[in-house]
């Protein structure tokens, strides 16, 4: 189990780094799907498999919704990406990794003493990387992916603290709602013509 959770943590680091560094939706969608798989492994350390699998299914549903929308409304900016910007974001990601490794033991000791260190590290890694992502771009689908990553990180840690069916259900609504908002944004932005004013004539 320990090897599996360590592998899940490594996958989270790689997936979140990919989402932070690259702007190609194909890479990001694959990384998001892998991230949810790894998060599921960490959640299953605290929750029964039947409940933990909900996180995986919801995560993959959200990923599919965003991916399918991006597939129809292409978002490839990798051509215009300079090596310097990739390097900068990679460096920023490495700093986050370093920061999480430094902060997590203290966080475990002071705030979450009964939670496994790997769960805290995995959750905080997603939270930290997503906050960095939110601070460095304003592309709607990337912002939505960052918010999904942020929530996923929080859910991994919160799963170790509390098990509630209603909370799980509400988080499902929030995650799917966020994905739908992402879809809505992407479609609205790439819509061919603006919506006509349908109110009362002035």
């Amino acid at each position, binding site marked *: 189990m320990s090897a599996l959770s360590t592998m899940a943590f490594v996958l989270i680091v790689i997936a979140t780094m990919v989402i932070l560094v690259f702007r190609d939706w194909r890479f990001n969608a694959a990384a998001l799907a892998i991230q949810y798989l790894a998060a599921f492994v960490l959640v299953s350390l605290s929750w029964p498999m039947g409940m933990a699998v909900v996180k995986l299914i919801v995560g993959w549903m959200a990923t599919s919704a965003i991916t399918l929308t991006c597939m129809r409304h292409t978002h490839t900016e990798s051509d215009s990406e300079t090596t310097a910007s990739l390097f900068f974001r990679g460096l920023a990601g490495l700093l986050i990794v370093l920061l999480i490794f430094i902060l997590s033991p203290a966080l475990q000791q002071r705030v979450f003493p009964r939670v496994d260190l790997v769960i805290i590290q995995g959750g905080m890694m997603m939270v930290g990387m997503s906050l960095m992502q939110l601070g460095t771009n304003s592309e*709607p689908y990337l912002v939505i992916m960052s918010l999904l990553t942020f929530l996923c990180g929080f859910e991994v840690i919160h799963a170790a603290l509390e098990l*509630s*069916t*209603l909370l799980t259900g*509400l988080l499902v609504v929030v995650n799917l709602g966020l994905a739908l908002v992402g879809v*809505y944004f992407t479609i609205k932005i790439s819509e*061919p013509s603006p919506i006509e004013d349908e*109110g*009362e004539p002035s």
Partner: protein
Amino acid sequence: MTLSTPILWVITPMVIAAVISILHQRHVLGIILASLTAFGLAVLAALFPQDLSLSLGPLTLVFEESLGILGRQIILDYDILPFIAFIYGMTGLWLLSSNLPGVPDNFRPISLVITASLTAAMGVTPFLYAALLIESAVLISIPMLFLKKDQHYRGILRYLSLQTIAMPFILIAGWLLTGVVILPPDSPLVGQTAIVLGLGFALLLAVFPFHSWVPMLSEQCHPTVVSYLLFILPTTILVFGLNFLNRYAFLRTSAGIFDTIRLIGVVMISIGGIWTATQEHLKRAFGYSALVEIGFSLLAIGLSAEGGLRWMLMLFTARALGYWLWGYTLTRLESHYDTLDFKSIQGCARKYPLLASGLLLAQLSIAGLPLLASFPIKITLLTQAISLGGSLGLWGFIGNLGLFLFTIRLLLSVVTSTESEPIRLWGTTEKSSEYLPILVLVFILIIIGLFPHTFLAGITNILTVFPQLQ
């Protein structure tokens, strides 16, 4: 199925919202259905008997106050009904104006769903889960903010991001609080918990420095939609926040926490007021004024030992009416002008005197001009703040002065004729359908200003839900 209050005030409006969505091409029917639902639920909440039974001729309907969902409960008891009546009544007011130019069709069903979600948030147990329902309301609100393809959307994204980030802070703080209650007050975990909780609420309430989305959203989105959102979200979040003070003695008894809330409130008032005073764009100025109003609510919470909570609740109605009028006049002006900066609307009072007057009066009502609705409450809050600490009250006063300064600048702009039309004569070109709502609202604001206790005190009854705060 047993009838319950959550079915009435949460499920029913959601079902009706779904029906309105299906009938989205029938505008008039949608407006009538949505407004009737909102006003009907408001009246029902205001007049509901204490034993929760309704007699309709020979038929007697007995309502339960709770509804079980996934092992947890949504409880809407008699004591919270005045607040539910208030938010549904105000939603109805906004729905009545949903046929204004540019208001998206989806505003009608979405605003009903938002109000229903926030009503559920008021009653969900454990109350911490309200954070998720508030987040759901935020997610639902996104489609009505998005108007057209070429619209700037950074404000919407920032609003979504900051509100979403807030939710985990509230949930984690809730978990921490369960452990903190048994700890001594000097435990470091107590302070850490207060910081996590404070961060969550700072994000939710757009407290400086998490405020940037408010003026952005205000500038980029439709004024009617934004005014509704800036009324309903902070109002319910503030009432949700009272749960924490009511439940946790260490928060309630800590003088430091109230001092901090008071200080943050005054910072919000002064920063928001100064920014408002320097704005050139009317819609952005509305956003900054909303920050000032959140500041006043926080100041009132900080003054809860002096009865501030009653003032905070009384301010809700005056603010809601002021926001509605502000949103309405901005919407009407926007239909006549491309942009709403000072330069574009210069001299507009000569052409649209009643619209311009309505806008000025809405701003003055929010600012707390004597005789208008907010004045008695704001003067009391500022007096209390000055009595506690001179500089605190002074900065609050300076911030509030910013709203007056902006209104004076606006007044000078709208009455000054433009260089292209230097001798434009005064005259009214508004239709009666445009100015009648303004006249009615101004009359109501004056009446409330003259008799504040008669019209505003009713909502303070909801403090019975928070017995520790009375």
